[in-house]
């Protein structure tokens, strides 16, 4: 900004065509205001509205704004379905993250090597992340089909399961959770691959060479040099993946709708059922807001790793 002022100063004759809109102090904020307004009006205010819903008696059948305090939250916590949902959400999120992170790292390490067909392999591995989740999940619904499941067919052909006891992937309580977590990890791990790839390529080669000369082997280089350098990026990816998984409902909704008997119910699907399908907006909002403290922690962690990153 000072550079502009200095450049403009000697040219007095040119001054007249500059207006207030040509000053960056004025223009900068003007440029940013629409974005902030959009975010405040359609994210900030609705969020406050959600807060108010959660402490009111609002439902679509009886839109009453009566303040009821923390009654909704108490009722939600007292419900056994909710407690089960909360546990499911944690299991779902943590297991999908672990599988996703492991496969992401392995995938990136493989794709770092030069080999014929590498670009094709990368394109195919990124597919699950690139395509619309609802459509990709439908393919899994069909693969898990109770009668015509290709997974069961393969397991049968390999002699791994007994024809009399074909697993009902989406219909048995224990298997349904495995199925939804696997599909979610499947959808997420390509994102991990991409992030690890970006991290690996940003590690300076001379640092690695120096370590190799000093006698560091493959594992030492991996865990004492590369991982610490790329840790902040991985942290950001992990926070995103966790928030995304913790709050997502599409995979679960399409695969099981939370069933059988709530065994795969997660916060998102429960809030949808209570708040939208049953019209009990107040309790739906209370369920959603259980996400909030968690999100706050995620945001703080994210800010810290954003500040700390160096690559």
């Amino acid at each position, binding site marked *: 900004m000072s*550079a*502009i002022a200095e*450049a*403009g100063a000697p040219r007095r004759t040119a001054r007249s*065509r500059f*207006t207030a*809109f*040509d000053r*960056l102090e004025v223009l*900068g*904020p*003007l*440029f*940013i205001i*629409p*974005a*902030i307004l*959009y*975010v405040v009006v*359609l*994210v*900030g205010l*609705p*969020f406050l*509205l*959600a807060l108010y819903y959660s402490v009111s008696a609002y439902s679509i059948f009886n839109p009453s704004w009566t303040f009821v305090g923390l009654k909704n939250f108490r009722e939600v916590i007292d419900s056994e379905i909710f407690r089960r949902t909360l546990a499911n959400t944690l299991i779902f999120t943590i297991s999908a993250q672990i599988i996703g992170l492991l496969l992401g790292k392995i*995938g990136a390490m493989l794709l770092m090597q030069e080999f014929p067909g590498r670009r094709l*392999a990368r*394109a*195919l*591995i990124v*597919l699950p992340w*690139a395509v*619309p*989740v*609802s*459509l990709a999940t439908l*393919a899994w*619904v*069909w*693969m898990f089909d109770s009668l*015509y499941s*290709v997974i069961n067919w393969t397991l049968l052909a390999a002699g791994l399961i007994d024809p009399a006891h074909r697993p009902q992937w989406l219909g048995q309580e224990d298997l349904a959770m495995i199925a939804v977590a696997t599909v979610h990890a*499947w959808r997420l791990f390509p994102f991990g691959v*991409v992030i690890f*790839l*970006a*991290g690996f390529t940003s590690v300076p080669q001379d640092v690695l060479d120096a370590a190799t000369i000093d006698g560091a082997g493959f594992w030492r280089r991996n865990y004492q040099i590369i991982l610490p350098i790329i840790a902040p*990026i991985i942290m950001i990816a992990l926070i995103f993946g966790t*928030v995304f998984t*913790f*709050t997502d409902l599409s995979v679960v*909704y399409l695969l099981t709708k939370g069933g059988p008997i709530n065994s795969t119910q997660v916060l*998102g699907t429960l809030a*949808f059922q209570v708040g*939208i399908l049953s019209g009990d907006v107040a309790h739906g909002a209370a369920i959603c*807001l259980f*996400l909030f403290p968690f999100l706050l922690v995620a*945001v703080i962690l994210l800010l810290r790793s954003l500040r700390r990153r160096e*690559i």
Partner: protein
Amino acid sequence: MPRLAGKVVGQSSFYGAVVTLVVFAAFPFYWMLITTFKTDGDLYNLKSIPYWFNAPPTLEHLKYLFEDTLFVQWLSNSALIGLCVVAITLLVALPAGYGLARMPGRSGENLSIGIFLTYLVPPTLLFLPLARVVTLLGLQDSMWALVVVYPTFTIPFCTWLLMGFFKSVPREIEEAAIIDGCTVVGAFVKTVLPLSVPGILTVVIFAFTLTVQEFVYALTFISSSSEKPVTLGVATDLIRGDIFYWGELMGAALISSVPVAIAYNLFLDRFISGITGGAVK
């Protein structure tokens, strides 16, 4: 000799790992492809090998999809919603990204992190109040509701990316344009925007694909078949009660996924450098 054997084992386990991962990632798409062209008799035959055609392929499912369902309508709804959202996003995020990139000191960075954090507020937290907002606007059960709501996640994300791209344009270029008689806005439009075309194109692709992929808001706001975007229409209307039209479903999923997947792959490298490079540096 043992050395050679070790190399062979190493090589084959490397390729084994690559192939396993590729199959895990891509098999569902192969499954979509093969299901689309299989006859019903072949699909529902427990005896035959499911991995390949046991009866001649058919175009029956695609014919049904295009002639007897609203698939084409859903595709054009998605395209229209995507284009409108991209337009709104660019209109808001281009100046915002530039303003933030050129803000002096740390204030631009802090503000941009603030805007970016709203990207973390999930649809699950907002669909109830936004359903109310949509009703207030008289847009319930209309795809225009999605045009209003989708920029809530495309604007933060694209502002962030654009800020990174704008930062990589040297300031001296605008300053030279200003000395040559441009206004600040003129300098932005005439020098910075043309230099950022690849970045802007990346943002357009990502805003469009994010929009086409969205599911939760569409599910919450829209129930009329004719207003649905393709992700929702396929997932809800091609399943009638317990009957799944698998050939049609998989054909629809495949046709809608392929363009998005290609666009993603073309811009992937730039996207990686955009998200990990410029913005916070």
